[in-house]
């Protein structure tokens, strides 16, 4: 029997609280060994790791690349896999490879198979895919089952075709289906982080509200503690609540720190919307067990009568080239709001002499308003600024042409009152213009209403042989 079957049978035969180890909220950025090893010593029933997020921007979903470095990803996967196999407990990985589309999932599976070969491990691996077919999406569009999220414009068939990858964020039910298939390792594409930890306890009839709340907290490892950090965390769930304990002795899960974690990256601290329902935290309570552990109860689960899956997609919008330059001349800094558009006009006249404008050119002026979405209009001028130029154009060559031309004319632009006639810019190195590859944007961020969300996420089971 494989790990999920063994753990399910053991807990059904001898009911007791279930222990879940949140090993990493960002697999691939390092799992601290002492806390992870400490967690294994507590005999958890499952190890879970979240690998992805939409917060990292559209480039990874669009390109199919992972955000984490291959060597670091491999090191973390090896640590988690060896720990789970040593205890013969399920290892559950969600949102594989940062964005959870097919190439991210395949890259994660390839690393796991390679580790298995190197370590001589044989195990059953369940794989849940999250890619949603374009045909299905177009059908759903025509029948009005896709709506934009948070003001996102209506989806069109053209945008469905333009996206390089479109994933659905699966909920807990596909994870339950996978764990019921008697597996040792579960690797899911894009998934709700709660599913990683809530699937197994809800299969054992622990209350869904408590399991979901626990999962929402421990998917970030010890981030809910003071001081917060990425060390492993252990949750012990029974039918009335769950206890939280960081596996790093310097981190404390306190009632306030755990309650405050409900704020993190959530629009509403009392509600967590999931594909299959809604987690209501209005009646949640947080009580100190001692100075390092907190007990949480009270969360309620409200199943949805109208299930919906969150869709994420990203498309290329051209090729990007950038310019890195500094400036310190107070006259240049004082007049930059006029200088930059004037240079853009000069560049357009040159590079569009025999063709229409087919690119966008923009500047961010760090020191002035490069960072803030709403910088005050009247502030004392800085002593230095950093100018980041950006071109997005139909081809790499075109983007480079516009950027190089811009560099030269910004360097030598004559403005009223200029004293420094040899050059307006300080380049930190050459070349200061860099082609950065395709530019991406999220073009799908919608809800797909579907009576059977579980059916969108097929399961494959393979035996990995070491």
């Amino acid at each position, binding site marked *: 029997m494989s790990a999920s079957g063994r753990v399910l049978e053991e807990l059904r035969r001898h009911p007791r609280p279930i222990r879940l180890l949140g090993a990493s909220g960002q697999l691939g950025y390092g799992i601290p060994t002492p806390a992870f090893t400490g967690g294994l010593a507590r005999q958890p029933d499952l190890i879970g790791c979240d690998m992805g997020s*939409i917060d990292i*921007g559209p480039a990874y979903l669009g390109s199919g690349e992972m955000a984490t470095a291959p060597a670091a990803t491999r090191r973390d996967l090896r640590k988690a896999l060896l720990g789970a196999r040593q205890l013969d407990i399920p290892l559950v990985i969600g949102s594989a490879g940062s964005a959870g589309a097919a190439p991210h999932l395949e890259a994660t599976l390839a690393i796991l198979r390679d580790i298995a070969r190197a370590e001589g491990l044989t195990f059953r691996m369940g794989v849940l895919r999250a890619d949603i077919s374009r045909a299905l999406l177009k059908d759903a569009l025509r029948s009005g089952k896709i709506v934009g999220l948070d003001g*996102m414009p209506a989806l069109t068939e053209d945008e469905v075709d333009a996206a390089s990858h479109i994933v659905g964020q699966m909920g807990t039910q596909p994870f339950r289906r996978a764990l019921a298939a008697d597996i040792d390792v579960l690797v899911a594409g894009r998934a709700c982080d709660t599913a990683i930890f809530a699937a197994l306890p809800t299969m054992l009839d622990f209350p869904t509200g408590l399991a979901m709340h626990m999962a929402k907290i421990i998917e970030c490892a010890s981030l809910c503690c003071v001081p917060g950090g990425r060390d492993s965390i252990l949750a012990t769930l029974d039918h009335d609540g769950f206890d939280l304990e960081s596996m790093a002795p310097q981190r404390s899960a306190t009632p306030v720190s755990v*309650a405050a974690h409900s*704020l993190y990256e959530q*629009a*509403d601290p009392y509600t967590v919307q999931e594909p299959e329902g809604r987690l209501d935290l209005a009646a949640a309570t947080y009580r100190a067990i001692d100075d390092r552990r907190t007990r949480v109860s009270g969360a309620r689960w409200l199943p949805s009568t109208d299930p919906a899956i969150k869709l994420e997609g990203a498309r290329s919008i051209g090729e990007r080239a950038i310019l890195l330059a500094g400036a310190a001349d107070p006259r240049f800094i004082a007049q930059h709001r006029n200088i930059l558009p004037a240079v853009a006009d000069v560049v357009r006249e040159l590079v569009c002499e025999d063709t229409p404008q087919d690119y966008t050119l923009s500047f961010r002026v760090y020191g002035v308003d490069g960072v803030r979405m709403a910088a005050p209009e009247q502030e004392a001028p800085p002593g230095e600024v950093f100018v980041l130029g950006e071109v997005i154009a139909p081809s790499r060559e075109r983007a480079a042409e516009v950027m190089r031309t811009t560099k030269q004319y910004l360097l030598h632009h004559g403005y009223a009152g200029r004293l420094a006639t040899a050059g307006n810019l300080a380049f930190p190195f050459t070349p200061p213009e860099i082609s950065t590859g395709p530019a991406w944007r*999220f073009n799908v961020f919608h809800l797909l209403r579907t009576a059977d969300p579980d059916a969108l996420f097929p399961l494959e089971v393979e035996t990995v042989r070491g």
Partner: protein
Amino acid sequence: MQLQQLAQVIRSKNAGPRRLTLDVMFASDGDYRQAAQSPALSPARIAALYRVAPENVAVMPYPLGRAIKITLARPIMSGDPGDRDVYGAQQHTPLLEIEL
């Protein structure tokens, strides 16, 4: 008193790619109550600071976490051309000097 003198945490982050969420957290229930009662943290005042429409701002008190949560619509979606802060982690500074 400025908000930064009273709060223990003032932070911003994306809540999905189209919204920004700002958390202001306090060390004591008293500090929390003082801030939560202040009209300086009304949706209209926050909207003016961030130059967004007031209907796109929500202010939610969260006494259990001794915190006030503010959620607003991002003017530019995360990672779109012209975005300045893909993660949204540096948009808290207009809150620092709010006079309570």
